């Protein structure tokens, strides 16, 4: 089961998925994330509470970018603040 928490910080969608992202919830989570974007071209995924991501979860995260046609690929930051800092001025990641 997926437990997605979602908010917008300065208009940028920030999603905090459940503790585990695995074959059991990857597809549900992908659909929830895609829906939560609502036309935004950037999504910050806060994996601070996530402990396990299995191959199905990794696959989902990379495919999500294609499905919702995000302009750039996946970038990894240490904190949500850094991620938001990277996207807000649009200087790339």
């Amino acid at each position, binding site marked *: 089961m997926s437990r997605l928490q979602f908010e917008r910080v300065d208009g940028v969608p920030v999603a905090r998925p459940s*503790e*585990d992202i*695995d*074959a059991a919830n990857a597809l549900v989570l992908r659909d929830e994330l895609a829906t939560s974007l609502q036309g935004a071209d950037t999504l910050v995924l806060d994996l601070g509470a996530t402990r396990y991501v*299995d*191959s199905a979860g*990794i696959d*989902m995260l990379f495919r999500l970018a294609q499905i919702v046609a995000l302009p750039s690929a996946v970038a990894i930051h240490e904190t949500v603040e850094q991620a938001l800092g990277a996207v807000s001025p649009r200087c790339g990641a």
Partner: protein
Amino acid sequence: MDNDGGTAEDLGHPGTAERTLDYVSLEQMLSDLLERIRSSLQADTAAVLLLDADRGVLVARAARGLEEEVRQGVQVPLARGFAGRVASQARPIVIEDLSRAEVVNPILRQRGIRSMLGVPVQVDGRVIAVMHVGTLQRREFGEEDISAMQRAADRAAAAIDSAQLSEQRAVTEIMQRTLLPYALPEVPGVRFSAKYLPAGSGVKIGGDWYDVLPLDNGRLALVIGDVVGRGVLAAAVMSEIRTALRAYLAEGHELSRVMALLNDLLVSMGRGRSATAAIFDYDLERGELEAVYAGHLPALLLTAGGEARFLEQFQGLPLGIGIGQEYIPQHYPFPVGSSLLLYTDGLVERRGESIEDGLERLRTAAESPAREDDASLADHVYRGLLDESTLEDDVALLAIESLPLQRTMQLTLKADTSELAWLRRTLGRWLAGQGIQEEDLFGMTLAASEAAGNAIEHAYGPHEATFTVLCERDDEEVRVIVRDEGSWRESHPYGRGRGIGIMRALVDSAEVERGERGTTVTLRKQLPGDAR
């Protein structure tokens, strides 16, 4: 009006009552009885309405010439309408002209019934039903008709009562099975035992319950509760609460939220009954408990050293009293070797004794080390406190013992991805017990989860397939062996293609053996020097 043919005397022939004991169906018995009455009183319709005392209504149960009354489930409130007055006044009532009388049931008018005679059906002075006949032509029911009808009702009363009771008993037996506690789950490193003893003879159900169900991420919910009152009604409300609680827990809410939702639900259901409950979230990996209480007695914790103490609690109000209550969670350490006792007040309360004395008796019984061979903890505690002959109230008791995992652990899992999170947590606990530390533990856990993911995909058919995970160690290494009986798939359209690469990157070695009878994946990790 003339009642010739002496039929009035035959109406309630004793045979009617005796034969009915053999009837399986109350409907059939009533229907035969009504046919007799209708023909002997030369009426056009005959009907019987049974009293539902709990709801204060008469419910149409059998009819002749008025069959739709039963089909439509006509209900007449007590003291209202024709049948309602017969019941509340407990005497025969005659209506000569229906068009001038208050009638609740519209069918009587629709069918053009003109005159009616109704009599109460009583057992030991208690009204259990109303029987009535009707005629399409205006008719004056005479004393003789009334007394014949009343005699018929009197003679049928015992049969109706016993048929109703045996019907209730049959329903109760079926319900009873659904109301019994759910089976306790098999969880490595945890031993559950329980006692469930409804008070009183006969119906072995009550308002007490316990429950154990898996939560997300390998945690367990432990539940104890007690609906006020006894018997079938308390059990019915218990069943509603238990199911609602399971549903709220499955939705993944915080415990405090679950309890608040449950409280609001019980208030809004308007059952007029309150309940006490305690819910625990047992994190097996961290060895911690979180609890919320709604007016329930404190759980008893037994430490590894054998000391028993009641857990301090933030007590919330019992469920069902008022909407919008707050329930505050409390956390407790619960390391391996500890035990927890959840119970209802029937275990500790005795007439003429304070609750403090009862609690102290429980604490002493739990600390008593002399456990009989093979006795579960629940049995041990129970025997130290009560025997069934002294049972005054329902008792539910659930004991949870946290045990060290064995050196070798074998898990049999459903071939369903919902098992993966539970597998990772359980394996994590086992690895930690073998001295495997953080990064290695994480690597082996995730590798085994990948192998399990493959095993789940290999499972064929819609029926319930399983796979096994064997965890073993020697002085050098730990091995996790995942076996299924399906055929290996090299890659899968969704994600699995990365699985084997991930496995190899995370552990010392990952061997995949594909045989005709299934696939075996063996994962190895060297033990660190200090864990050998």
